[in-house]
């Protein structure tokens, strides 16, 4: 059985990825901060919950090791854990910035780095970094978050380039606001995509499942928007 590791798998896109990869026949381990939510997802999917906060370097490194021990092999890594930071960069405290970069840059870097040996041992595999549409077209309401996500897309591109010879692929997925997701479940607070709808976690998990499959064997180092064409052209205010 192939093995998959998902960070931040207790809710939103991460949970959808756990559900999908388990349904596709992967043995799945996933991390999260909330033990109750973790237990619920584990019970629903047969996946294994490993408590780890993405800000905790030792716990995050140990989680990769433990996943490899439980699964016996590692074929897919989905680096998903994240959080939103609203408000101007001018007003972001040093602590908020350090946390943001720790979760969205350092943790994906460390998780990828920690997984390389196991992915190599499996004869190759797939790393998917859940970035954001903000990595490509930043959001002025989420400016610091956009900065971090831009870096995470570059991280995926360079993992892809660096590990190509090992048969390890890495890609960045850049979703728009997803429901249910980090922003909560109230669509009234967020603008939908150009089409007028929001993607669901399952829509993002579809792309993750594809990127982890052999059908995507030539897709690597790619930064892929899943944003209902938001980033494809400038968004103009509605004609009055």
């Amino acid at each position, binding site marked *: 059985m192939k093995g998959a590791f998902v960070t931040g798998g207790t809710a939103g896109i991460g949970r959808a990825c756990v559900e999908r990869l388990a349904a596709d026949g992967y043995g799945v381990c996933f991390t999260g901060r909330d033990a109750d939510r973790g237990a619920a997802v584990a019970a629903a999917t047969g996946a294994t919950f490993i408590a780890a906060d993405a800000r905790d*370097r030792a716990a995050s490194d140990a989680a990769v090791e433990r996943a490899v021990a439980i699964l016996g092999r590692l074929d897919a890594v989905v680096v998903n854990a994240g959080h939103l930071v609203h408000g*101007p*960069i*001018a007003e*972001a405290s*040093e602590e908020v*910035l*350090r946390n943001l*970069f720790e979760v969205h*840059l*350092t943790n994906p*870097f*460390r998780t*990828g*780095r920690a997984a*390389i040996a196991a992915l190599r041992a499996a004869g190759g595999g797939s790393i998917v970094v859940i970035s954001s549409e903000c*990595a490509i077209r*930043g959001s*002025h309401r989420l*400016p*610091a978050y*956009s*900065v*971090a*996500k*831009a*870096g*995470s*897309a*570059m*991280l995926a*591109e*360079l*993992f892809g*380039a*660096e*590990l190509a010879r090992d048969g390890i692929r890495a890609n960045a997925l850049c979703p728009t606001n997803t429901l249910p997701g980090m922003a909560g479940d109230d669509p009234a607070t967020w603008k939908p995509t150009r089409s007028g709808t929001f993607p669901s976690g399952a829509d993002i998990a579809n792309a993750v499942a594809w990127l982890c499959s052999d059908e995507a064997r030539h897709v690597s180092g790619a930064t892929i928007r899943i944003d209902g064409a938001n980033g494809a052209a400038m968004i103009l205010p509605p004609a009055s």
Partner: protein
Amino acid sequence: MNRLEHRRALVTGGTSGIGAAAVRRLVAEGARVAFTGRDPQRAGGIAEETGATFITADVRDPAAIRRSVAAAVDALGGLDILVPNAGVLHHGPLGETTDAAWDALLETNLLAPILYVQAALPHLGAGSSVVLIGSDGSVWGEIEIAAYCVTKRAVHMLTRMLAVELGPRGIRVNAVCPGDTAPGMVTGVGDRAALPDVSTWTKPPTGITVHADEIAAAIAFLVSDDARSTNGTELLIDGGMKAALRANTVWAEASR
């Protein structure tokens, strides 16, 4: 040319490479300049030559960042131009990048420019300008300097986000994205590297290795009123090296 007369500028990491070239150029265009660095010995010559004020500061120390901005404001009587140039380079693929190197890159190349902007903001009025230092590696990554490229891609987005955030206050924010530049970055994580042998560098399609003075000229343009409407842009200055998939082979083929 006195485009920058009456302007007051702070350049971080101004003791060598692009930073030193920027100090010289801004002074030459009429600005009053303060610059930071870790080593007063390296700074002496430039301060003496240009009349610019040297401030000792390590940008990995947030207290030193705030202190150096205050010292610059004191010395210059205000601040109109900020060039948070100090940066470190690290060679190696991601798989071999140590925690220490990663943290140094993130703190120096990404966090420090943000903290500098925050510290400088109360002093920057309408007509002020910030120039961040990206890299051609922020536009298109390089495996050999992978973690560095991650930080510079983030700086790329930082440029845009600050341009949007500060635009309404009359403060413009842009970035220069230099290709391999000489004299350029000699600061590796941990300590200073030996000066690279530029003659071995791959030439861009122009056949000319980028000179630090050319980056300084672009910085001077971006902070001047000539660039009044240039905001949130990343100016790639790399001789065309990133203009095509294998542009790095073009010069060698053409000069065969």
